């Protein structure tokens, strides 16, 4: 049964739009799937390989801008940004990896934070390429109905899930986990840690970039403050995985459902809208203290707590 769970779930997701949801609910559904893709990308690098990144907005934004820029500069459909973003983001990730993967632990965390900010500042200032703070507007929408966007991002999510599952079960996945557990031990066993960390970073970056390119096509408008945002992309990415469950297959999906619903809930209450980062921060603190492995990672702990409460 467990073996077929992904396929069953995929089929269920694919059938949801046939119920005839409103445009708003479809939007939320698309956001959930998109965030689970970004979460899966982060999870590969952060959860399995142990390299915590606070700069995934850099990859998301580069993906989004490669779709936006070929639309404005070459005049071709922004959908070509999806294949293009794979190449561009992989190159960017190689350069970033060369610089920041020399660092370990908290220093790597901080370098990714700085890199994310540098990309935002550059996108604001390179006006010839990115149109600066004006942003890029995709003038013609491909479909009015959201259903096709949903199926495209669902397809990306399914492929990502399959890819990550295969990677983790392969030799590569064991190398990643070995690096996370003890980098020196991994190195002394003959694992070229720099190489495998770079591979993890590139894979993770490319997936996040795909989500970014999709975002440009779906939303039709990007600007540096949105796609390179530290608090709205990078930190939310970390939170999706932390809330859902670090180094679990289902964590990013669970986290994406909770985070997107939580964000929408806060936004719908007028007084709380301005304080949404405070609430996110408090949620993050609570999760780290009480459920450090996330909801999917600490299921047994949650069940135990519930059982105690019921019996007492």
């Amino acid at each position, binding site marked *: 049964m467990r073996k077929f769970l992904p396929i069953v779930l995929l089929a269920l997701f694919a059938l949801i739009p046939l119920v005839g949801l409103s445009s708003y609910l479809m939007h939320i559904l698309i956001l959930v799937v998109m965030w689970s893709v970004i979460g899966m990308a982060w999870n590969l690098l952060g959860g399995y390989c142990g390299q915590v990144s606070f700069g995934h907005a850099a990859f998301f934004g580069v993906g989004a801008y490669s779709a936006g820029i070929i639309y404005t500069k070459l005049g071709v459909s922004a959908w070509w940004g999806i294949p293009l973003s794979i190449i561009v983001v992989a190159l960017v990730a190689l350069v970033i990896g060369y610089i920041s993967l020399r660092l370990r632990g*908290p*220093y790597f965390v901080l*370098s990714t934070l*700085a890199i994310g900010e540098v990309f935002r500042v550059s996108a604001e200032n390179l006006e010839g390429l990115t149109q600066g703070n004006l942003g890029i507007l995709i003038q013609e929408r491909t479909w009015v109905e959201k259903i096709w966007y949903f199926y495209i991002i669902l397809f990306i999510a399914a492929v990502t899930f399959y890819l990550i599952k295969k990677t983790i079960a392969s030799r590569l996945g064991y190398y990643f986990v070995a690096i996370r557990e003890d980098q020196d031990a991994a190195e002394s066993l003959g694992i070229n840690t720099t190489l495998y960390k770079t591979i993890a970073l590139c894979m993770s970056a490319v997936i996040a970039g795909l989500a970014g390119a999709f975002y440009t096509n779906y939303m039709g408008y990007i600007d540096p403050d949105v796609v390179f945002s530290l*608090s709205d992309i990078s930190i939310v990415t*970390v939170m999706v995985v932390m809330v859902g469950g670090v180094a679990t297959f289902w964590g990013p999906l669970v986290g994406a459902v909770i985070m997107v619903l939580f964000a929408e809930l806060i936004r719908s209450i007028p007084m709380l809208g301005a304080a949404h*980062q405070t609430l996110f921060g408090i949620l993050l603190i609570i999760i780290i*203290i009480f459920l450090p492995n996330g909801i999917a990672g600490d299921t047994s702990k949650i069940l135990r707590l519930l059982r105690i409460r019921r019996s007492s």
Partner: protein
Amino acid sequence: MSAQIELFLQTLIAGILLGGLYALIGLGMALIMGVMRIINLAHGDLMMVAMYIAFFSYDIFHVDPYVSVLIATPALFLLGVGLQKFLITPVLKVESILPHNQVILTVGIGMVLSNLATVFFKSDYRSTPVDYATKAWYLSDFWRNSPIELSLSFAWSVSFVLAVVITAMLWFFLTRTDTGKSIRATAQDLDAALLMGVNVERMRMLTFGLGAALVGAAGCLFMPIYYLYPALGKQFTNIAFVVTILGGLGSTEGAIIGGVILGIFESMTATYLGMGWAPVGRFIIFVAVLVFLPGGVSSLLRSRRFGR
């Protein structure tokens, strides 16, 4: 020619003055880094809190920002101890897959602080209009026939001198008192310190408090010469981070040297390239240090000392 020398010297002076303040910010980060092996990503946000304390004590009680060092520093010390005791220590005990949970936790703390400041104090730019803000000393006042003209802002020099005094006090505390020696012992070797009877838990609390107090003092010193807004923390966290990287991991001497180098570099880029380039310059320094000198300045100091 003399105009160019004048500009260069003036920039150098401004850089050193700025560097003294950066050193103070970096010192707090380096202390926390050294003792607890974590990076405090809420560092700049703690500074923002101290600046709001300084701002409101000026605005309501007309307390001079320099005097409010005496208010904000103890307040930040208590805040730091509280954060360590109630949030960071519990996380140290929790078993988890990711080793960087404390770092992610400090990000959460920083988010809460800066967002609460935005909610309560709005995103307005504020400053304390002290009457000595524009006062300055000129070289020609002292040396009538000097070929070049240099000026020294009163507020900047007072901030710098106070930063040096606080640094000296910290140095005295760390090298001459028992508690200070225990903190350094904990930083050098945690297990050995434990075996020697050092209360490591207490030292951690003290260190986080001290780091917060140092950045709080720096915030008060920045108040007369800078402006204040809720999102300012991120920028100063970055500065503290670059200073510690430049100085070497968790090294206090390195942080001082790193602070001065970064101050001079930023001042130079601002004069010769333009104000907007300062963040980019910071990043270039960061990358250059990582690529060419991964151990920071302190690795140079150390190799000199051991004659390697």
